[in-house]
C-alpha cells in the first residue's frame, strides 16, 4: 500500500485525498470539519480506544502552521476491524509571501512492523516466564493466546505427552470449549488418533484439512462438531535429544490448508513450547533427584551442610538443623555450626577444618556436639572443599552423621572388653604367684636382715652414726621396693582405664621377663630375648602391654608342659619393620597349632590346653587391635608356635584423631 496523502486548506476543506488515503481511512473526502474527523475516519490514540483529540490531529496542527513528525495513530473502521497502525508526518502549506494556506499530511501504514513488534514482545514475555520458572500451564496458555492473537479465527492447543510416551498428560486450549480439554487429557496417542495423537506418534507434522472426512479423526468427529472445528494442523514438539514432548495444533472453522505465515507461527510456537517443556522436565528430574538424595540422607540419618567460609554463612538441610538443634528459620554461619562442637574438641575440629580449607582437601572428624540443655551427641563430620577456577576456596560441602547410638553400643562393648581384660589380669595373678611372692619376699628379707643387723649392732654397742644411717637408708629403700611391687600388682588388678604413653617395648619386655622369672624357673623353663635395639617406640598402655606379654609367655609355657625341662624354651624377639611398625614375636617349641586354622586360638572358647586361662589370647587380640595393631599365630620353623604382634610405631607427624 502506498502512502496516504491528504491536503486541506485553512478552512479545513479537503483539497487532496488520494486513493491510498481512501483505503486507509475507509472513506473519501467529506464536508466534515476537524471536530468530526476522529469519529468519521476512526482515528485513535496509540492506546487504540481514545479518539484522537481534534486539536492534536496532525492535519489540524499542520494547518495551524506546525511541523508534525512521526506521530503514531491507530485507525479502525468497520471495514478494517483489525485496525491499521500509521505513522504520520505533517507540514503547513504557505503562499509565495509565506502566508498560511493550509496543511498536508503523509500517512504510512506501519501495521505489519507494529504487529511483528508486538509478536516479538509477546514471545519475549513468554520466554521471560519460562526463565522465571512460571508454572508450565501458565506459560503454555500465554503462548497459545499469543499465537491466537496473530490470526483472526485461529484457535490453538498444546498437548503434553506423559513420560510413558503413550498418553496425553495435559492439554492447554484456552480458546476451545472445556469439553475439548477434558477429552484430550489422558487419551492415548497412536497412528490414527486425530492430528495431535498421530503427530506425536509419527513424530511428523499432520495436516488435516477437514476433520469430518479425514479418517484420522474418526474417533473425534463428535468432539470436532461440538467445538466447531474443521481444519486441524498439528506439529510434534521435540526435545533437543529428539524425544517427543507434546504437540502444538492450530484449528480453523474453515476447511483449508495452512498458509505460509501460519506454518511459520507453528514453527515458533513449537520451538518455544519445546524450551518450556524441556526446562520443566529437567527441573522435575532435578527435584526428583533432590528428593531421592534427601530421602536417602534422611534414612541414613545424614545431615547436609554447605559452609561459605569467606562470607561466614552456611546452609543446612532440615535434618541437619534438627541434629544441631537450630531453629528452621535461624540464619546460619560457619561460626554458629562450629559453636555446637563440644568445647573439649572444638579447637581440634576447627584446626582440622581450617587445614582442609587451606589445602582445599577433605576432612573427617569424629566428635561430640554439645547442644542446648546440655544434650550431647556423637557425630562424624565429613567435608570437601570446592575451589573456583582461580583456585580460591568457594565453599565446603559435607555431611554430618549422627553416630550416638552406635557410639553407645561401642561404649558398652568397650566396657565388656575392659571387664574381660580385668578378669584376665586377675587370673594372670593366680598364674604368677611364685613371681609375685618372690618379688615381695626379696625386699622384705632385706628389710628384716637390715633391721636385725641394726638391733645386733646396738646390743653389742658397736654401732656408729654413719653405719646406723646407712642401715636406715637401706631399710627405707627396701620398703619402697616392696611398696612398688604391691603397686605393680595393684595396677594389674585395678579396674582403672589405662593411659597410653610412648613406650619402649624392649624395656617392657626385659622388665616383664625379669618379673616372671620365678614362675618360669618353677616350671623348669627358660625365657630368652632377642631384642632389636633400633625398635621404634609405640604409643600404648603399659599395663595392657604387660598383660599381653604375660599372657603370651604363660601360653607358651603351657604349650610346652609335656616336654622335657631342657626343651622348654620361649624366645621373645623384637624387630622393627621399616620404622613403621614394632614387631614382637613370642615363640615356643611346643606341639604347634592346628594347621588348618592357626588363628582360631584367638577365639573365645578355643583352647587346646587342659588347664589354662581360656580367654587369655582373645583378650590379647582385643588389646592389640585396640592399639591399632595386628596379631597372627603361625607355626614356627621346625616345631612350636609363634605369635607375632605388630603395633604401629609413633610417627614424627602424629595424625590428629579426635577420638577421645
Amino acid at each position, binding site marked *: 500500500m502506498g502512502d496516504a496523502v491528504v491536503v486541506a486548506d485553512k478552512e479545513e476543506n479537503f483539497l487532496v485525498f488520494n486513493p491510498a488515503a481512501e483505503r486507509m481511512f475507509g472513506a473519501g473526502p467529506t464536508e466534515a470539519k476537524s471536530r468530526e474527523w476522529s469519529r468519521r475516519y476512526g482515528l485513535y490514540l496509540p492506546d487504540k480506544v481514545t479518539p484522537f483529540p481534534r486539536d492534536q490531529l496532525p492535519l489540524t496542527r499542520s494547518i495551524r502552521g506546525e511541523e508534525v513528525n512521526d506521530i503514531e495513530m491507530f485507525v479502525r473502521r468497520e471495514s478494517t476491524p483489525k485496525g491499521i497502525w500509521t505513522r504520520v508526518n505533517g507540514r503547513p502549506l504557505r503562499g509565495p509571501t509565506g502566508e498560511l494556506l493550509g496543511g498536508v499530511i503523509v500517512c504510512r501504514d506501519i501495521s505489519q512492523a507494529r504487529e511483528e513488534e508486538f509478536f516479538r514482545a509477546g514471545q519475549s514475555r513468554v520466554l521471560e516466564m519460562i526463565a522465571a520458572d512460571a508454572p508450565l500451564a501458565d506459560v503454555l496458555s500465554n503462548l497459545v493466546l499469543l499465537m491466537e492473537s496473530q490470526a483472526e479465527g485461529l484457535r490453538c492447543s498444546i498437548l503434553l505427552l506423559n513420560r510413558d510416551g503413550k498418553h496425553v498428560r495435559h492439554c492447554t486450549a484456552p480458546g476451545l470449549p472445556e469439553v475439548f480439554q477434558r477429552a484430550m487429557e489422558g487419551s492415548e496417542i497412536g497412528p490414527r488418533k486425530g492430528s495431535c495423537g498421530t503427530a506425536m506418534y509419527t513424530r511428523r507434522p499432520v495436516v488435516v484439512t477437514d476433520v469430518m472426512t479425514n479418517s484420522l479423526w474418526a474417533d473425534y468427529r463428535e468432539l470436532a462438531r461440538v467445538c466447531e472445528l474443521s481444519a486441524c494442523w498439528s506439529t510434534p514438539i521435540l526435545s533437543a535429544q529428539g524425544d517427543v514432548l507434546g504437540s502444538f495444533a492450530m484449528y480453523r472453522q474453515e476447511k483449508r490448508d495452512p498458509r505460509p505465515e501460519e506454518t511459520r507461527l507453528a514453527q515458533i510456537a513449537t520451538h518455544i513450547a519445546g524450551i518450556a517443556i524441556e526446562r520443566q522436565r529437567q527441573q522435575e528430574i532435578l527435584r526428583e533427584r533432590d528428593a531421592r538424595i534427601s530421602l536417602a540422607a534422611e534414612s541414613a540419618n545424614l545431615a547436609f551442610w554447605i559452609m561459605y567460609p569467606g562470607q561466614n554463612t552456611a546452609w543446612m538441610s532440615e535434618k541437619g538443623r534438627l541434629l544441631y538443634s537450630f531453629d528452621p528459620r535461624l540464619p546460619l554461619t560457619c561460626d554458629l555450626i562450629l559453636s555446637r562442637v563440644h568445647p573439649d574438641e572444638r579447637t581440634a575440629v576447627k584446626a582440622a577444618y581450617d587445614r582442609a580449607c587451606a589445602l582445599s582437601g577433605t576432612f573427617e572428624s569424629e566428635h561430640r556436639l554439645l547442644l542446648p540443655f546440655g544434650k550431647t551427641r556423637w557425630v562424624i563430620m565429613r567435608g570437601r572443599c570446592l575451589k573456583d577456577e582461580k583456585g580460591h576456596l568457594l565453599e565446603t560441602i559435607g555431611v554430618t552423621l549422627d553416630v550416638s547410638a552406635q557410639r553407645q553400643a561401642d561404649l558398652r562393648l568397650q566396657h565388656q572388653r575392659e571387664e574381660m581384660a580385668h578378669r584376665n589380669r586377675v587370673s594372670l595373678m593366680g598364674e604368677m604367684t611364685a613371681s609375685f611372692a618372690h618379688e615381695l*619376699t*626379696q625386699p*622384705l628379707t632385706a*628389710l*628384716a636382715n637390715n633391721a636385725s643387723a*641394726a638391733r645386733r649392732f646396738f646390743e653389742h654397742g658397736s654401732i656408729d652414726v654413719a653405719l646406723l644411717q646407712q*642401715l636406715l637408708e637401706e631399710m627405707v629403700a627396701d620398703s619402697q621396693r616392696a611398696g612398688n611391687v604391691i603397686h605393680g600388682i595393684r595396677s594389674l588388678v585395678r579396674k582403672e582405664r589405662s593411659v597410653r604413653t610412648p613406650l619402649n617395648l624392649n624395656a617392657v619386655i626385659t622388665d616383664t621377663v625379669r618379673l616372671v622369672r620365678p614362675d618360669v*624357673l618353677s616350671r623348669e623353663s627358660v625365657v630368652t630375648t632377642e631384642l632389636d635395639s633400633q625398635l621404634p617406640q609405640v604409643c600404648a598402655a603399659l599395663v595392657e602391654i604387660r598383660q599381653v606379654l604375660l599372657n603370651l609367655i604363660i601360653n607358651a609355657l603351657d604349650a610346652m608342659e609335656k616336654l622335657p625341662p631342657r626343651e622348654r624354651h620361649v624366645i621373645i624377639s623384637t624387630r622393627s619393620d621399616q620404622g613403621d611398625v614394632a614387631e614382637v614375636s613370642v615363640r615356643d617349641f611346643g606341639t604347634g597349632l592346628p594347621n588348618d586354622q592357626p588363628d582360631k586360638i584367638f577365639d573365645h572358647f578355643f583352647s587346646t590346653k587342659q588347664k589354662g586361662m581360656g580367654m587369655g589370647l582373645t583378650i590379647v587380640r582385643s588389646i592389640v587391635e585396640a592399639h591399632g595393631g595386628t596379631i597372627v599365630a603361625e607355626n614356627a620353623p621346625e616345631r612350636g608356635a609363634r605369635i607375632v604382634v605388630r603395633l604401629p610405631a609413633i610417627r614424627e607427624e602424629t595424625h590428629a584423631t579426635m577420638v577421645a
Partner: protein
Amino acid sequence: MSDPGEVKGKEVCVVDDDLSVLKSMYYLLASAGLKVRTFNRPEDFLAHAGTHHVQVAVVDIWMDRITGLEVLARLCAISPKTHVIVVTASEDLAAHATAKAIGPFAFFMKPFDDEKFISAVRVALKQNRK
C-alpha cells in the same frame, strides 16, 4: 665390700644377684661379728672358690644368668668341702627338693629367722666337712 671383723679367720661367702638382699645379708652377718665376703655375680664366686678355701657359702638358688642349682652343682665339683647354706624366696617345692638333694648344710626360706640363720652359719664355720 670390706670385712668389718674377723671370726676365727674364716669368712662366709654370700652369693645373691639381688644387690639389696646381698647388702642386707652382709650387714646381718657382720652384726653377728662374722667375716663376710659378698658376690653379686655367681661366676665371680665360683672363680673365688676355685682359688680359695671357702668354709661356708650362703647361696640364693634363684639367680638370673646361672641358676642357683647350677651354682650348687659346680661348687660341689670345685670345692666339695664348702658348707652350703641355701636361701630361697621361692616356694617351688620341686626346686627345693633338687636343692636339698645336693646336700646343703642348711636350707632357709626367705624371709628367715635371723637367730636361726646366724647360728647355722656359726655352726658351719666351726665344723669341717668330711
